[in-house]
C-alpha cells in the first residue's frame, strides 16, 4: 500500500526533555491510523511535526514519497486537541470564514455546511455565538470545519475527548465514512475501545519512542500469547491432569448445567492440535476458542514493558 506520510528518524528536543527520540512512522494511504500513548508520550509533538508547526531537530517527513513542503500542509485537515474558534463570532459566519479560507467558494461552502448542520441536527446553532456553545457543541463545529473541504489527509488530535458516547459514536461513523471515501485519517487517542473499532493501523508511542507499530489485527494476534478457552461436559480434574505437561490451567469452573469452562495457557513448545485432541478424548468438547488480547491489555503491557 502506498504511503501518504512517512516520518523518518524524527527527533525533537525541548529545553529539559526530549519529546520525540528517533521516531519512524509510516502511514499507509487510505488507512485509519491511531497514534496511541500515555499522556506526554510525544503524540501531539509528532502531529505538530507532520503539520510543520514544530520543526524537528533531526529527521525528515516524506509526503507521498517526497520531502514534505509547506504547501503540502494546505492539503491536510487538522483538528488540534485544544479546540480553537473565534469566541465572539457567530457559528455560521465562522464556519463560512474557515471554509472559504480552505478554498471553497461562498456558495459551495454554504451548501456543504447546510448538509453537515442537518446531519448533526444543529441547524439552529447557525446564529449562536461560539462562546455560548458547550464544549461538546464547539467540538462538532470544529469537526465540521476540519472535514468540510474533503482533504486527502485528516489529522485529529484526541477527537473523542469531550464527547458523550452518542456523539462519539457519530464521530466514529463519520471517520469511517471519510476513510471509505478515500481519505487517510490519523488520530491520537487514549480511547482503546475506539482503536479496536476503527483503526486499521496503530503506532504506540511511549516516552518519546515508537515501541509498537503495525496492523491492529496482526498486533492483537501476535500478542495473543497462546491463551484459549475450552467448554466441555466431563471430568475437569481428570482433564487437568492429562493436560498438565503441555498446559497451564489458568481458570476452571463448573456451572450448574454440568458444563465446565477452562482457560488454558498452552506452552510455547506444545502443539495446539494435540491439546484439542486430548480434550476431545477426555470430554465432550463443545467449543475451543483463542483469546485475543484487547488493545487495552496490549497498551498497558507495552507501556509497562511486560509485552
Amino acid at each position, binding site marked *: 500500500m502506498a504511503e501518504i506520510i512517512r516520518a523518518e528518524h524524527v527527533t525533537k528536543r525541548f529545553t529539559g526533555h526530549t519529546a520525540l527520540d528517533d521516531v519512524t512512522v509510516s502511514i499507509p494511504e487510505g488507512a485509519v491510523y491511531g497514534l496511541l500513548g500515555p499522556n506526554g508520550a510525544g503524540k501531539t509533538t509528532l502531529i*505538530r511535526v507532520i*503539520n*510543520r*508547526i*514544530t520543526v524537528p531537530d533531526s529527521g525528515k517527513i516524506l509526503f507521498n514519497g517526497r520531502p514534505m513542503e*509547506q504547501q503540502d*500542509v*494546505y492539503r*491536510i*485537515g*487538522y*483538528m*488540534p486537541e*485544544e*479546540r*480553537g*474558534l*473565534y*469566541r*465572539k*463570532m457567530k457559528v455560521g459566519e465562522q464556519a463560512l*470564514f*474557515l471554509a*472559504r*479560507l*480552505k478554498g471553497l467558494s461562498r456558495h459551495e461552502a454554504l451548501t456543504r455546511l447546510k448538509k453537515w448542520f442537518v446531519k448533526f441536527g444543529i441547524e439552529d446553532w447557525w446564529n449562536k455565538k461560539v462562546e455560548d456553545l458547550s464544549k461538546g457543541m464547539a467540538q462538532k463545529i*470544529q469537526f465540521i*470545519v*476540519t472535514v468540510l473541504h474533503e482533504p486527502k489527509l485528516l489529522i485529529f488530535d484526541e477527537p473523542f475527548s469531550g464527547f458523550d458516547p452518542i456523539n462519539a459514536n457519530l464521530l466514529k461513523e463519520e471517520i469511517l465514512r471519510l476513510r471509505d471515501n478515500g481519505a487517510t485519517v490519523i488520530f491520537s487517542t487514549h480511547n482503546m475501545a475506539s482503536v479496536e473499532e476503527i483503526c486499521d493501523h496503530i503506532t504506540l508511542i511511549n516516552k518519546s519512542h515508537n515501541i509498537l507499530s503495525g496492523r491492529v489485527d496482526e498486533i492483537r494476534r501476535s500478542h495473543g500469547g497462546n491463551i484459549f478457552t475450552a467448554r466441555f461436559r466431563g471430568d475437569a480434574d481428570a482433564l487437568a491432569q492429562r493436560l498438565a505437561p503441555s498446559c497451564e490451567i489458568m481458570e476452571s469452573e463448573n456451572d450448574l448445567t454440568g458444563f465446565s469452562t477452562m482457560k488454558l495457557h498452552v506452552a510455547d513448545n506444545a502443539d495446539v492440535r494435540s491439546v484439542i485432541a486430548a480434550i476431545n478424548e477426555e470430554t465432550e468438547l463443545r467449543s475451543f476458542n483463542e483469546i485475543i488480547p484487547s488493545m487495552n491489555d496490549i497498551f498497558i503491557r507495552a507501556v509497562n514493558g511486560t509485552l
Partner: protein
Amino acid sequence: MSNIGIIIGREYRERVYKKSFILTTLLMPVLMLAIAIVPTLLIMFAHGDAKRIEVVDMSGKIADRLESNEFVEFTSGGNDLQQALKKSLEDDNFGVLYVGENIIADPNDVKLYTNSSSSMTMEESITSQISDIIEAERLKEYNINNLKEIMDNVRADVHLSTFRNDAEEGVDKSVSSAATGIVGIILGFMLYMVLVIYGSIVMQSIIEEKNSRILEVMVSTVRPFDMMMGKILGVALVALTQMLIWGVILILISAVIMPSLLPADIMSGVASIQAGATDVAAVAQMSDIDPEALTALSSLLDAGYIAGIFATFVIFMTGGFLLYAAMYAAVGASVDEIQDASQLQTPIMLPLLLAEIVLIMLLNDPNSKLAFWFSIIPFTSPIIMPARVPSGIPLWEVILSAVLLFATFAAMVWVAAKIYRIGIFMHGKKPSFKELWRWLRY
C-alpha cells in the same frame, strides 16, 4: 478570493459592524465640538452672576469712574470702611474695595476686602481700571490741550500679516501661523492616538487568537504571513474608515455649516482673504473683527486647505500605522498575556514619546533642523510630518518622508513576520529580546 483578502474581510467586518465602533465614530466629533463650544457657552451665560463690590472711595476720584462689567458690579459704599464691611457681610455681597485718600500720588493705597475667595481675572480687571483712571488724572495735571486727540493719534495697533513666499506660485495668500501651529499640534496628537490605540488593537487581538488556539486550526489553511498581514491591513482599513468619516464631517463643518453660522460681514472678509487679498488689516476693519482671528478663520474655513492637510494626514497615518502595527504584531505574537507585553513595547513607545516632545517644540519653529529630521526619520515622521504640513513645507520633503516610511514598513513586516511565525505557537515563557533575535535568524 485570496486568503489574505478573506482575512482582511473578517477583521474589518468584526470591528466596523460593532455597536461600539459606530457609536465612537459618530459621537467623537460631537464630543470634540462640545469641548470647543461648552466653555464659550458657559462664559456667555455666566454674566448674570456678576459680583457686587462696594467701593469706599476716600479720594472721591475713582468710585464714579469704575465701570461695572459682566463680572463685577460696583456700588458706592459710603465713606466709612468699618460700616461698609459690616453691611457687605449682612447683604452677602462679594466684598469691599477701599481706595485711599491720596490714590493719585500713592497708587498702592488700594485694598480689596472679600467675603469669599477672590479671582485673578477680577483683581486684574479692578487694577487695570484704577491704573487707567490714575494715568488719566496724572496726565490731566499737565494741562495739555487736545490731549484726547493726541493720545488717539499716538496709539498704535500692530498687526503682522504673514504670507507664504513660494518659489513656484509667488506670494501666496495670507496664512495664520497661530492657526497652522494649533492645527499641526492637534493632528500630531491625533496621529499619536491612532497609532497607539489601533496598534494596541492589533496586538491584543493577536494575543487573543493565540490564547483561543484558533491559530493552530488555521495553520493547515493559511500562511502565518497572510494571517498577520490580513490582520494589520484589516485594522488599518477600520482606522481609515473612521478617519474618513471624521474627515467628511470636518470638511462639511468648515465648508458648509460654519460659513452659514458666522455673520455675513465676517464671511465676506474671509472670502476676500481666501481670494488673495493682501491688506488683511483693511479687510478686517471692514468686517469689524480682529485681523489675526480673521486670517485664522479664513485658513480653517478653506475647504481646499483642510482637504490638503487631511490627505497628508491619511497618507502618513496609513504608513505610520502599518509600521507600528507590524511592531505591535510582533510583540503580540511573542507573549501570552497583555501584562507581559509592557517590556517588549518599550522600543515602540520610545520614538512615539520623543515625537510628542518634538511636536510641542514645533509650535515655536516648524522649520527647525530638529523638526526637519524628525519629520524625515520613519519612526517619528508619521507624527511630525503631518504636523509640519499646515505651515507649508516643500513637497519634496513630504515625498521623501513618505517613501522612507513605506520602505521601513516593508522591512519591519519582514522582521515581524519571522517573529510572528514562531511566536504564535510558543506558549509559556515570555521571550527576551535575545530570544527574539534568535527567532529572526531561524
